[in-house]
């Protein structure tokens, strides 16, 4: 473990950080993480973050919610005890299905929304009682931090590159 050094480049301008990241990447140095008070437009491809899978997760949660609602309404209103409400046909599911569409819609949205939020919290490990991974509290205010994990022999080169690209502060741990 001692073989790795953690370098923090702290910027006060996200455009300078992007420039610095591009230079590091072109020198084949991996940027481990970027901490920022707001989403930086276009940072993902620069630091090599793949496109998120959360939309596909959302689709699967939505399908789950839809299936659960259809199963629930079928079981309650047709399968277990055919309920006649307002003279609507209840002996076959397809005949009464318009009545079940609103609840199916709501359940789809509920499962998709909550599933996606929970997935996001788990993936980012933002949970109650978890200590924040954020290395510097200033990145929640007005500073942008780039974290690099490097071999000790690369340290001076990386520090020089960060400073040259306009980092306000470089910390080595």
């Amino acid at each position, binding site marked *: 473990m001692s073989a790795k050094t953690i370098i923090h480049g702290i910027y006060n301008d996200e455009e300078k950080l992007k420039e610095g990241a591009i230079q590091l990447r072109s020198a084949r140095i991996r940027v481990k993480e970027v901490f920022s008070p707001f989403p930086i437009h*276009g940072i993902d491809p620069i630091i090599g973050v793949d496109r998120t899978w959360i*939309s596909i997760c959302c689709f699967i949660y939505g399908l789950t919610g839809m299936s659960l609602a259809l199963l629930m309404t079928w079981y309650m209103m047709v399968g277990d005890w055919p309920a006649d409400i307002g*003279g*609507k046909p209840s002996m076959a599911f397809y005949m009464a299905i*318009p*009545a079940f*569409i609103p609840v199916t819609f709501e359940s789809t949205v509920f499962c998709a929304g909550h599933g996606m939020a929970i997935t996001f919290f788990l993936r980012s490990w933002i949970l109650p009682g978890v200590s924040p991974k954020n290395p510097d509290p200033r990145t929640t205010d007005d500073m942008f931090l780039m974290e690099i994990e490097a071999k000790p022999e690369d340290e001076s080169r990386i520090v020089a590159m960060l400073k040259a690209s306009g980092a306000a502060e470089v910390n080595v741990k």
Partner: protein
Amino acid sequence: MDTSGMNLTYILSPKTKNICLTLIGVGLVATIVGIFHGTADPMHTQRIWSNIWLDIFFFFSISLLATFFYAVQYAAEAAWAVAYKRIMEAVMKFLPVGASLVFLYCILGVLGVHHTWKWLSPTAVAADKVLQNKSAFLNPTMFLGLTFLFLLAYVSYQRWTCKMSLEADAGGDGVKYWKMNQRKAAIFLVFFGFTSVVGSWFWLMSIDAHWFSTLFGWYVFAGQWIGAIITFNLIGLHLKSKGQGEFLNDSHQHDMGKWMFAVSFLWTYLWFSQFMLIWYANLPEEVAYYKARWDDYRGLLWTMFFMNFSLPMLMLMSRDAKRNRTFIFIVGIVIYFFHWVDTFIMIMPGSIGAGGHIGMIEIGMFMAGTGGFAWFVLAQLAKAPLLVKNHPYLQETLHFHI
């Protein structure tokens, strides 16, 4: 970004003209064949008239909703759509023609030339208690007066804003023009919001004069809104196929794809809300509308509903699909047709009864209308540069990236 290297002059090429002419020609031949073929049908004359109304209304409302969408961009201070501004204006320029045709058709109705609106005939009203009770609103004076007022206001806004767009190009303070436009757009949107609903009662809902539905206006115009968005998309694709429109990047295409997807859901939501509430409540005066469609137009009704709902949902859900121009083209063409079928189902059961179907006359007039509309709109597109100048959001739209 520098726009000087872009070819911003659109020329309506002979090839495009020939495609439009072929559509018009084939459409007219099919219509004439249909007209001579079906004379045994007692509703034959009214069927021809109803089809004329169907196509007038369809293309009129596409240009009206294009105007609405254009105004929304100002009210929302949206920058991305500035690249589509001239395309929208080309579609909007059909509005004066469409509005004139709508008004002409309404006058012919009042004169008794056709019987699309049964409540316009005094004998029908005299024999019908429900129509008598509705006659404070459904009478020729209100009909022509409000139609004229609404159309005049829509056309005035459209002509003013298209004129201002060219004036701002000629040099001048872009921000000043933008602010003027925003104020007028907000006023237009409020006016449009109320009057389009009332207009839909007159123009479509009162064809089934006994029936009423509170969300009918939104449902009609949500459908036509998709028509307007598809038209913008198709013109954008047409420009790309000619090697023009470099200012329309993948992010613009993505956003237009999102609009097609989202408004399809708005339409589905409204269609289904109207259907489900009427089906559930089962009140005789409301159910009559769906009874007529259920008995005689069931296949068309459900095909139309599922195509307009499932096709955009399944084909345009992913990000890559919205950026894929082939997907946008196929889905666009198909749901453009099925929104026309939606309008068909709004008009036919009330005006010609159970015998309505899609035959030679319907397809022929629709083809001829599409050809004529496309030619008109593309000819308007050729009259102005494809991209605005001096617009405060011009650079933002050229660098648009999502």
